[in-house]
């Protein structure tokens, strides 16, 4: 097991290096002089010479690449020219919002998608099945940004005054603030350092933070703000998960051992959940893992709509402000995250299906 994980980690290294190379190459492909591309009108010859020297752009390309990799390995992701802050700091500030949104979307799509898929498979060709599949097809075809806008319109304006009204923007109602859990617990944290960053990171996730300080009013407010964006981001994965569950379950339900389990008198529900679902899970885990890319892509589009200041929003703002460093660094971070996630998915196979041989 350990050897397998180690080997998978080792084989990920070329892919990770490739990711760094692609982002490095992309930055070098900016047409024209990078100094003028980044600094714009402020760029004079003197400033540019200094800029080129400082960023090592006068060195040969392979040397530049090595410096770039070295910097990233040391956790230096560069600086945002627009905000004058290190990208790592921005990451600690912004990633929790996106992570919270992605997790909420994932929970939503799994909690609804899997049961829908199971019901469709068990009641194959029934009205529920046909209805689910029609909805799944429409769901897969839905542009995330459109769905987000329409949800905001329906739940914030059309349903205004009803109990179903939901806020269309922000993470908390105006005036509300969730005190960080470490302050509430009276912990003294240093000024900087990894631990402090980690705690700040966790406290930025409103749902977790309000649970940690056990404030149900704040939790409810945070959840209410999370519902619409999470539904918008989660709809496409939900549709994919429902379809996958259905076809995977249909395959398994037709097999002999399921019939045998029924024949020996086990109740239908038990056979579906304990015998069939467990074996249908394997392709599902892959799909859910791969959907995480869709969650992140969806987050870029959704955050701009719902006024959430997460990674997606900062990517969008950096694109419009031509703050390339931020776009590049966040792309690296997300891609690396994605590779690690795929690794976890691969490893989880061995737990779900002991037949999967690790070698």
């Amino acid at each position, binding site marked *: 097991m350990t050897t397998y994980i180690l080997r998978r980690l080792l084989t990920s290294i070329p892919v990770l290096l490739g990711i760094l190379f692609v982002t490095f190459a992309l930055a070098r492909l900016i047409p024209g002089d990078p100094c003028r591309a980044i600094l714009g009108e402020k760029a004079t010859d003197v400033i540019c010479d200094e800029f080129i020297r400082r960023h090592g752009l006068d060195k040969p390309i392979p040397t530049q690449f090595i410096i770039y990799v070295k910097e990233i390995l040391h956790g230096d992701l560069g600086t945002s020219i627009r905000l004058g802050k290190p990208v790592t700091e921005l990451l600690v500030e912004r990633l929790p919002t996106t992570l919270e949104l992605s997790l909420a979307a994932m929970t939503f799509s799994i909690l609804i998608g899997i049961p829908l898929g199971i019901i469709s498979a068990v009641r194959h060709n029934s009205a529920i099945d046909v209805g689910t599949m029609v909805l799944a097809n429409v769901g897969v075809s839905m542009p995330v940004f*459109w769905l987000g806008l329409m949800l905001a319109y329906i739940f914030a304006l059309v349903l205004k005054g009803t109990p179903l009204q939901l806020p269309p923007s922000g993470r908390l109602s105006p005036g509300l603030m969730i005190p960080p859990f470490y302050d509430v617990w009276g912990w003294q944290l240093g000024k900087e350092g990894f631990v402090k960053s980690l705690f700040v990171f966790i406290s930025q996730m409103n749902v977790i933070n309000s649970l940690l300080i056990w404030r149900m009013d704040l939790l409810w407010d945070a959840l209410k703000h999370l519902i619409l964006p999470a539904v918008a981001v989660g709809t496409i994965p939900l549709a994919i998960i429902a379809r996958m569950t259905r076809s995977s379950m249909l395959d398994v339900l037709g097999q002999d051992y399921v019939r045998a389990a029924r024949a020996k008198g086990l109740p239908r529900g038990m056979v579906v959940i304990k015998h069939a679902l467990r074996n249908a899970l394997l392709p599902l885990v892959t799909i859910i893992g791969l959907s995480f890319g869709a969650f992140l892509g969806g987050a870029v589009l959704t955050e701009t709509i719902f006024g959430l200041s997460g990674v997606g929003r900062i990517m969008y703002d950096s694109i419009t402000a031509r703050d390339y460093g931020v776009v590049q660094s966040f792309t690296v971070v997300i891609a690396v995250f994605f590779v690690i996630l795929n690794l976890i998915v691969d490893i989880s196979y061995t737990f779900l299906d002991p037949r999967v041989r690790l070698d």
Partner: protein
Amino acid sequence: MAALKEESIEKRPKVARLEAEGLRTTESISFWGTVWRRLFRRKSAVVGLWILAFLVLIALTADWIAPYDPVQVLIGVEPVKMRQKPCIHLLGCPEDQPQHIMGIDGNVRDQFSRILYGARLSLLVGLSTVTFAIIIGTFLGAIAGYLGGVVDNVIMRFMDVLLAFPSLLLAIAIVTILGPGLINALLAIAIVSIPTYARVTRATVLSVREMDFVEASRAMGGGWGYILFGRILPNSLTPLIVTGTLGIATAILDAAALSFLGLGAQPPTPEWGTMLGAERNQVFTAPHLVFFPGFAIMLTVLAFNLLGDGLRDALDPRLAQRGEE
């Protein structure tokens, strides 16, 4: 009718002879005939085909059926206001007001005409990106699969790297560098989708190259270029057709997303994503300007998804037996 029958009998003398001898004959059906028949048996695929036919018709006839020029500003031409609600005479809109069935947009243009022209652009976007990606992806995948060894490793590891990025984010990064614009956005989406086609082609080429007819070609002295592109590739096309059809749906969705972010088609181009992006802050005051473009995108993507799913089921020999039940 009779003439037609005579002609068809003339074309198949053997059938005619057998029938003349009083034997019952059944027409033989080609592979594509079977696929076509299976496709038409699936309701969802038929729905997809109908929607697609409808969209193609709109795209082709937009010049004639659009009531206005899609970029014409109607200030001073008609008594209309900015972001005016839809006015449909049949639904009780006063006759003295000009009819705009999808309302007026933020620049006082007819939304309906813009939506119609948008169909043309979206279909072109889908087809062109996928064609580009298929040509390059198939070429790379075919070479990797056929030659194997170092070539295979280098190509496919590079594809792995491209696949490691969430596709929309990589497309965004590429357009950021190339600069915003429809052509650059298309290029970015095409580049991002190359790995999918390379993988699919490689997998099929790997299995087809072991078949006897390939061996026969090799025995007859065919060069590798001829064997690969003349013999193997034509026999590896079916999975590509399915992936390509579903790929058009993704490409249209991604192109709309890039345009929505301001990285794709630039105003005043009547592109659905751009139209939506321009009016997104008006969703509470003028929801029709957000609803119609988004609905149009969804309908187009849905059509390709339904068709792609249908084609997959029709082409899959495993499902074929089940489908015949």
